[in-house]
């Protein structure tokens, strides 16, 4: 057993109102630069819907993630290493800019410089890539809140799969339709296929916290990671010619702050914490024959930080004591392992993703309330979860490779909690059978309620800092940016280049790398 610590996130979809604050703050922090105009490390998509980039979940087309060979061995869905090298010169699975969207701005100047006339001036859209006037065909969130509208529903790859392979007709008639929001960041997988696809070895998983990063100084722009990632969360900067991705805001993480998307989340629906897992068994877990077995296999990888054997093994593997402590208090571990509420996104890609989701119960409650029943009565709600089979099947395709049972169990626990807490608040005698029926104790339900509904800041985010042993060095982090490390990884790059890392945030195509020429000494 080799123990590694992983920073993971859980998002409670019940509380997402689709306000896109996470996307906007992330964009402003990380990708409001030349070359990444079209890039959203965090995006919020409406489901059912095509997502961003369009139909990224259709792996028959994009060939991202892993698959099992005929002999049951794990290999990249994009083909063998030789095939990957053979397609260096033109990657057949690379999405085009139009699959994301053509970024644009507006010609605002005409608003102030237009001569006086009868018509008010109009700011026409201008392509942010070429600078030429353009027509807007789609955007990063083009079908926002359209849900299963008639032109969109059938284009959702998950809907198409349900229809073609399983014979489930998802209903999009007016009164039966449903929708919810799905915020997405990089999954920081335990078995990352982007890392495995990178020919240069520039992408890596950090040993200390499991964050997946791109070494900007080693990336050569072969673009295999972009197609290798089934979630399409590695992007190509068309100015620098390098891959960029969500960094889990590691400079913030290292000083114990949550990611920008989590910090600014209006609905307070994100949870960040540590999970310990056995890195030696990852490949085995990702190679489970039955896709429906991937979710339980991944659950099985997570280790119990209360177990003395695990703690001893973790200390042997160099996991700092502070991190083991954090793993014990981890809200993420509670939601994933203890309450079994959170589920992984598309485990069938076999990447062992580490951003998990609590399925949304609210659409069910709302649908029930509209029919005149009490939406929070346990009997009604349980019945409704069963009756509204379509959302459950749909959610199962998203979160459990099609197995509806874990989704149903999670939603039943959420329903039981709502019902129980309602009787508490109304001063009624709570029905204890309700809880035993879903395998929870009263204490657990109260703790669950506190975590999900009260959602205190320091209970949502339990983030150990980069290490007490390095505290004196960390002082520098608070004043300087930790992207600025010599030989440090990630956005700032720095693989030993003499001039120090390139400041990616202020980099422009015309700039000359620092250190390219000897610095002129001034006295």
């Amino acid at each position, binding site marked *: 057993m080799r123990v590694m610590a992983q920073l993971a996130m859980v998002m409670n979809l019940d509380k997402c109102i689709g306000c896109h604050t996470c996307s906007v703050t992330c964009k402003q922090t990380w990708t409001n630069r030349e070359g990444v105009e079209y890039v959203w490390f965090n995006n919020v998509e409406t489901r059912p819907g095509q997502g961003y980039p369009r139909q990224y979940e259709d792996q028959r087309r994009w060939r991202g993630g892993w698959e099992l060979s005929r002999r049951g061995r794990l290999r*990249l869905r994009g083909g063998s*290493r*030789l095939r*990957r*090298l053979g397609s*260096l*010169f*033109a*990657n057949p699975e*690379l999405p*085009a*800019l139009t699959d994301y969207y053509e970024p644009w701005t507006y010609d605002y100047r005409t608003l102030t410089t237009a001569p006086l006339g009868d018509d008010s001036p109009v700011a026409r859209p201008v*392509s942010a*890539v*070429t600078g030429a006037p353009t027509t807007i065909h789609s955007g990063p969130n083009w079908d926002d809140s359209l849900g299963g509208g008639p032109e969109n529903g059938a284009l959702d790859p998950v809907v198409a799969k349900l229809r073609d392979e399983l014979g489930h007709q998802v209903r999009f008639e007016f009164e039966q339709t449903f929708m919810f929001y799905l915020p997405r960041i990089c999954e920081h997988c335990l*078995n990352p296929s982007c*890392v*495995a696809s*990178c*020919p*240069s*070895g520039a992408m890596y*998983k*950090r*040993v200390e916290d499991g964050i997946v990063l791109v070494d900007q*100084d080693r*990336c*050569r*722009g*072969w*673009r295999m990671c972009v197609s290798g990632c089934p979630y399409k969360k590695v992007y190509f900067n*068309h*100015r*620098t*010619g*390098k891959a960029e991705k969500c960094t889990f805001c590691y400079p913030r993480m*290292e000083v114990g702050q949550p990611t920008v998307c989590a910090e600014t989340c209006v609905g307070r629906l994100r949870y960040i914490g540590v999970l310990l897992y056995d890195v030696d068994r990852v490949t085995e877990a990702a190679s489970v024959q039955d896709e429906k077995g991937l979710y339980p296999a991944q659950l099985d990888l997570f280790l119990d930080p209360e177990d003395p054997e695990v703690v001893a093994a973790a200390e042997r593997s160099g996991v700092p004591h502070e991190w083991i402590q954090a793993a014990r208090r981890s809200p993420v571990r509670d939601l994933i392992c203890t309450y079994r509420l959170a589920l992984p996104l598309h485990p069938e890609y076999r990447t062992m993703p580490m951003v998990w989701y609590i399925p949304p119960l609210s659409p069910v409650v709302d649908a029930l309330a509209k029919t005149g029943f009490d939406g929070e009565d346990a009997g009604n709600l349980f019945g409704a979860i069963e009756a509204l089979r379509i959302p459950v099947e749909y959610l199962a395709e998203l979160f459990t490779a099609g197995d509806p049972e874990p989704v149903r169990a999670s939603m039943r626990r959420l329903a039981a909690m709502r019902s129980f807490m309602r009787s508490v608040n109304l001063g009624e005698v709570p029905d204890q059978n309700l809880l035993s029926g879903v395998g929870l104790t009263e204490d657990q339900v109260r703790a669950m309620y506190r975590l999900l509904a009260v959602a205190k800041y320091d209970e949502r985010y339990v983030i150990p800092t*980069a290490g007490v042993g*390095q505290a004196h*060095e960390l002082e*520098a*982090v608070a004043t*300087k940016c*930790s992207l*600025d*490390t*010599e*030989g*440090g*990884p990630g956005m700032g790059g720095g*693989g030993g*280049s*003499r*001039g*120090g890392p390139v400041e990616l945030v202020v980099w422009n195509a015309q700039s000359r*790398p620092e*250190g*390219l020429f000897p*610095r002129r*000494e001034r006295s």
Partner: protein
Amino acid sequence: MTSPLDLLLWAVLPYVTIAVLVGGTLWRFRYDRFGLSTRSSQLHESRLLRTASPLFHFGLLFVAAGHVFGLLVPKSLTSFLGVSEEMYHLGALVMGALAGCATVAGLAILMWRRWRTPAVRGATTRNDRLTYVLLGVVLLAGMSTTVLTNGVMGEYDYRETISPWFRGILLLQPDPALMESVPLTYKAHILGAMALFCLWPFSRLVHAFTAPVQYLLRPYVVYRSRGEGLGTRELGARERRRERQGL
């Protein structure tokens, strides 16, 4: 007697080229690692690139292999192995022409694409333009040596002159006299190539030296530690001196 010009072109320039190529590449790897990239434009345009880019790159790899064979393998070795002059000539002509055609066609489509696609055109630097022109000149001159000098107009056995000259350069025994009788097309090709190699480290062509062959050997998932230098930035010479002076 070798004229001073011949001495300059065929004994001095080759070493200048090698020095610039090696020194420039080392310098670039050391000081501008961030700048080493394919700077792929596939994101902007994929349809033309899908045919033209493999055509060009694989063609060029074949052309390079042909050059290694023609320049480094001595004539004595091939005749010892029983390859007759006619067989060699025919083989070199056919394979060289095919690989060359593929490369030139690939480059032509790629340049047209670069010209016609606004986004790709916008991503083209002045350095790129110079590189493409030079690359085109060298390729066309090379094609003319194979197709014209060595094909249509008869036969020229470069393995008696150019190849020994090239090996002499590498063995530090340059013999510019060997190049005196060489046809003009060959001379143009070689001079152009030397200019191209001088530009190489300072252009996007440098990505060829980062070909990721190690991918075949390494484990799939790479783990890396955050490293020692966390949050600390190594001081430059100036800051170190300042620190010593207590400033």
